[in-house]
């Protein structure tokens, strides 16, 4: 049973497509690149410049205000440990990448999600695309990022934004679609315009759902940023990567624990802010 079916050159087609993009949209990619790089170094340098203890204090205060004493104590111990292990600078680098990637993801996801909620046709187009984006193995996104942006943080951010964006889009659309029809009817009955309905009703009412999406986006961004160390996005991932190459399990786990601490802090903090 040996049919001689020629192998479909799927990979070749994709490469041709990518080449086309890099050739014709280099202006765009370069613009994005310099813009993002500027943002990264600004935020990174800023955070590095401030005394670590001052940052820890500020984070503890925020945690205490938003989530109570327990969260504040956890922040103090966790961040203290990271500082003690000498992982402060890579942690700040990772945090910078996560923040910028999340910000970009939200900027794209909110309007996309709103559009998906308001237009049935767009919703039907975008949902399979999101499924595809989320089931694709994470580091496959690293591959096109390199021809677009070269090795480094910007390529990492690009891959991270693509990987982490779907939940924010999904939850935004979901939240808006969940606004009860009766309330929309009331808004219509009193003569609201489309944008009045959006800003006075749909967005405020879906805010908790949107925040849940953003929380997931942050978590995904963090996991992706760590992986993006493979293409030169420096941070805690780089420490793990280096430990693997040098067969230093201890150092690898230390960096891993730092990632977990950061993840838990970001998670609890965004959840607390939802309320």
């Amino acid at each position: 049973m040996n049919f001689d079916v020629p192998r479909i050159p799927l990979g070749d087609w994709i490469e041709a497509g990518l080449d086309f993009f890099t050739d014709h949209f280099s202006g765009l990619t370069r613009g994005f690149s310099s813009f993002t790089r500027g943002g990264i170094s600004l935020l990174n340098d800023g955070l590095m410049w401030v005394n670590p203890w001052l940052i820890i204090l500020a984070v503890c205060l925020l945690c205490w205000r938003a989530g109570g004493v327990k969260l504040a104590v956890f922040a103090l111990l966790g961040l203290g440990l990271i500082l003690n292990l000498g992982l402060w600078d890579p942690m700040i680098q990772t945090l910078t990448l996560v923040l910028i990637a999340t910000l970009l993801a939200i900027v794209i996801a909110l309007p996309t999600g709103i559009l998906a909620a308001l237009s049935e046709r767009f919703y039907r187009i975008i949902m399979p695309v999101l499924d595809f984006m989320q089931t694709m193995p994470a580091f496959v996104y690293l591959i096109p990022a390199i021809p677009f942006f070269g090795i480094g943080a910007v390529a990492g951010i690009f891959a991270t934004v693509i990987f982490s964006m779907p939940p924010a889009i999904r939850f935004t659309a979901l939240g808006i679609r969940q606004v009860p029809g009766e309330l929309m009817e009331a808004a219509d009955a009193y003569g609201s315009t489309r944008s009045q309905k959006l800003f006075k009703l749909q967005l405020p009412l879906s805010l908790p759902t949107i925040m849940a999406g953003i929380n997931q986006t942050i978590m995904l961004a963090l996991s992706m940023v760590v992986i993006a160390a493979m293409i030169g996005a420096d941070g805690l991932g780089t420490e793990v990567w280096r430990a693997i190459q040098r067969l230093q399990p201890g150092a690898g786990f230390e960096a891993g624990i730092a990632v977990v601490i950061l993840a838990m802090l970001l998670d609890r903090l965004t959840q607390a802010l939802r309320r």
Partner: protein
Amino acid sequence: MSDEKAIKIRVKGLTKVFGDNPEKAIKLRDEGYGRTEILKQSGQTLGLSNIDFDVYEGELLVIMGLSGSGKSTLIRCLNRLIEPTEGDIVIDGENIPTLDEKALRECRRRHFSMVFQHFALFPHRSVRRNAEYGLEVRGVDSQERHKKADDALKQVGLEGWEDAMPSQLSGGMQQRVGLARALANDASVLLMDEAFSALDPLIKREMQQELIELQERTRKTTIFITHDLDEAINIADRIVLLKDGEVVQIGTPEQILTAPADDYVARFVEGVDMTRILTAEAAMKPVRATARDDDGPRTALYKMRENSLESIYVVDSERRLLGIVTAEQLGKAEGVESIRDLVDSDCPKVGPDEPLQALFGMFEQRNYPIAVIDEQARLKGVVVRGAVIEQLARAGDKS
């Protein structure tokens, strides 16, 4: 009386078909098929069919019908929350179905305030911010709309709750907020879709009473939907009765109760407590004869004998009721020139709206009929004991 009144909204030939092929449904309808047959043949639901009625300026019009009769569809066609398939809805010279999006929005802002069955309050806004919503979307500045919202809240008895959130309020209070939102808006017509149906009976009564008082005070044109006949009778100036998307009867509560247009209406009326609903006017008979105050005893006695009466009502030249005299009194009177001095002015009399139930008690004390008088004390008719029972029996038979 009705043709003196100004018409606020005129609904003409209003039809609504739910489905993707309204032409087919309308064609079947015009061939004389009913709702179920149309659904079977074309898969289209005939929500409303050829509805005609007028809404008078300042009246409280109740639209009543069983579940599925098309009440919600009808009220939503008025402000086009549901797009009518055919027909005209003219308000102050504007034909609503023909308006474009912008004009429709203006029309909704100017003409329609709506109160919903399940309140439909905005949960993220305070009571005041809910009440001012209609003004807010119209771009009224915040000071003015605060003032109007607070005024409206005061009218519905929610002073002091302005900053509470809707979730902190009971059902009855939430619907007061819904009402305040409608009142603050100052639109010319109030639409209420089963506004009190979700409230428990006691609160419901209270709200009905307040609505009646409010409506009498402000004379705002109100269209109120209910499936509850008691409620309709209690608050309506006029009732439009719907059945399977068609109007079966339009009339005052009195007309609907005493002269049901068909079996459907009669069945509807069945459950109502007649003694509470029927009024003196329904059981009233014309007066066979009256005496004038300047008649002499002889004339009065003659009139009574001619009409085989034992007592006679005495009225003045404007037909205002002065009282009653009996044959016995007149027989004893010697040398009296007019009967004026013999009149017993303490005779039983009621207004036309008096419930029949109240009349029962009055019959126990006296044995002569009860006079029905209007606001100017003019004699309109009499109610005799037998007529009350007869009326109740008749209403019972019909159902």
